[in-house]
């Protein structure tokens, strides 16, 4: 299944295609996304991550088409 | 004589957007109540209870259906 990811800037992006999509096995959890993005354990509590614009537990199972967003600030305005 | 209906606000749904306050033809709704969230947003209160004619414009205008007329 494919999910849309908006990664934090220091993430490892190799598992994302140019549209920001990540391929996961069905039933994969949010924690898998963190692992694939190689997010350092120590930074994990500082990250604000939403699945489909809701805060969920790391153990949440994802489904095809889910949107996983990490918060980053805007520039401008 | 039937009692006029007045707006009751559902603060769980309310987004504090100010549309009800801005649309009321007699400015009966003020944006005031702040003890609802930690952001200190001003939420609507029916400031002018007796002026309110029960016209229901506020309830109709609310995009998130947070106002009921009772």
């Amino acid at each position, binding site marked *: 299944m494919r999910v849309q990811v908006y990664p934090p800037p220091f993430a490892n992006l190799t598992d994302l295609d140019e549209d920001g999509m990540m391929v996961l096995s069905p039933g994969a959890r949010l924690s898998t996304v963190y692992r694939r993005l190689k997010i350092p354990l120590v930074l994990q509590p500082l990250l604000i991550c939403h699945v489909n614009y809701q805060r969920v537990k790391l153990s949440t199972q994802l489904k095809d088409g889910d949107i996983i967003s990490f918060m980053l600030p805007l520039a401008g*305005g | 004589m039937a009692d006029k209906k007045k707006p009751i606000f559902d603060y769980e749904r309310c987004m504090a957007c*100010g549309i009800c306050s801005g649309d009321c033809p007699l400015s009966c709704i003020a944006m005031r109540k702040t003890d609802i969230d930690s952001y200190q947003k001003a939420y609507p209160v029916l400031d002018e209870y007796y002026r309110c004619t029960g016209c229901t414009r506020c309830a109709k205008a609310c995009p998130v259906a947070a106002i009921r007329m009772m």
Partner: protein
Amino acid sequence: MVDLSDATFDEIKIPDMIYEHFLSGVGLGAYILYKYLPQGADPLGPDNILGFVSGLLTGTGSFMTGRWLAVCKSPLTGGFGDANCGGTFSPAIKQSGYDGIFFKGQAQTPKMLFIDNTGPQLLDAADLWGLDTVATEAAINQKITANKKLAIATIGPAGEHQSLIAGISNDGGRMAARSGVGTVMGSKKLKAVVLAGSKMIRSQDSEAIKAISQDYAKKVKASNLPAIATGAILPIMGKSMVATDKAIPIDGMLSTAIIKKWGTGFTNTMGMTMGDTPVKNWKGSVADFPYRKYRHLNPDHIQKHEIKKYHCYSCVIGCGGVCDISGISKGRFLHTHKPEYETVAAFGSLLLNQDRDSLFMINELLNRGGMDSISAGNTIAFAMECYEKGWLSQEVTGGLDLTWGNAPAIITLVEQMIAGVGFGAILQHGVKKASEILGIESAPLAIHAGGQEPGMHDPRMDPILGIHYSCDPTPGRHTIGAGSYYTYMRIWEDVTWAPKVKLGEDKNDEYEATTQVGLKSMINACTKQILDGSGGCFFALVSGLNHFKIFDYLNAATGWQKTPNEYMTIGLRMQTLRQAFNVREGINPRDFKMNERLSGNPPLAAGPLKGKHFDIDEMMGIHYQFMGWDKKTGIPTKTALEDLGFCDLEMEGFIHG
């Protein structure tokens, strides 16, 4: 149309077809100005037209559409002028029964316009002349009682003295500040517009609109920062944004959490490490204003003063605030609107001023005085650089010591500029005029584009900003477009020919005049017009069009069934009309090119933007080309005008390239 010279009112019915061509808001304003303003009109004379326009979506149940604009021929640039503002004035315009209220002529004595459900009246305002904007609102509320709370737009002393950088205030200090719109209002001796109407605003499919609104609201409601997130993280976030040259598309919706907490102030410190924030009249960097100085501008400190959130009509984010400043102003002012980033930077880093308390004072002085903080800050920065070079003696400055960062001198100078006295009399008309008065050698230090001072965002970090500073018919504005705004909008999900920003794209590509840059800047300009024609908020736009479904909103409100591609054509037509207005009024578009310091000529020697530069002439050319305007001159071509259907609209006097 209100004729102030003979106190008459004329209701102009606009055919539906015009709205389909130009939307409302800025499009309606441009249409009226082009049609009714005589060519060559003196911006400070009776022939200029000043308009107050609402937006097509205002009051329809859509969220984030409570903005209004003031439009006029700008005395600052000589071309089309508009200023965008929020607050509660926008729905009031429509509730008075009109999409726009326009003024021509000049009153003999100060007047104000009052509209309630019985119609418009011109009332005497001589006793209000001289009052600041806050005092004026209070006085009007004493004088006039109406069934509905009054929505008041007023000028302050700066507009009355016809400072070229005067703006129009509503809600006690929310300003339509740019283009000298307040100057024009002052030249017409129009002190205030007071609205108390309560007509209903109708839309075609309000259920569809509400559905979109509910979806948007749900997402914004869930976007919150945890309590541990303090202002300390902002400089770190800024550093991480520039740590890589790779473009990383962000989800703008979650960024509303940051705006909810701090308002625009989050950029105060984040911009320092990113390079977004200009320093020392645009010639410095974080090396000149390091952490130990800029930490005073941490927005957490500003939040401590906030007693209540403030937001525009129909906004669910609420970026504004009311601050208690009785303690720091020695009791002179009790409250002020929370200082925006633009004001904090223009009077902070731009002047190497780390005195946070002074920023609150300056904010309130400018809001009450009715003067644009971006223009005022840039002008003082210019004066400080001249002073540094030894070109200004204490005699000229009236004894003011204009060393960088001298907060008391800055405050005094602001007061002088608003009153039009002392050294402030020279600076009150903006940086271009000040430079002309002081002499030709000072011109390279005068940072402006086409006479208007730029917003606090550095084109050396985002070159497309520089394109819009130099090419928009209202130059020097930071809200038109940027490479980053394009990325946040995600417009490629709607507009089929919009280039998609791919993960990992090289940000350095935007420093060359490529097809991508041409397309992106063209789309930025058109989308901004659609936004301003709808009364939409910039922060809604950059939260992502996948969330802020403006095209669906427009269709639901009007009953049109236009595709996003078709709306882009409308945006292009609106922008082309504004450019055509400038050309008709004798502007050579290339003259609006921004000061080359902003394109890195010479480049900065330190900081995150060290060495960055780009060719602004080439960049302007590629933008003109994609707008359908002549690549060399920027004048809309005959083909462009025909393709956009201007011939069918009974509008004349187009000069084409």
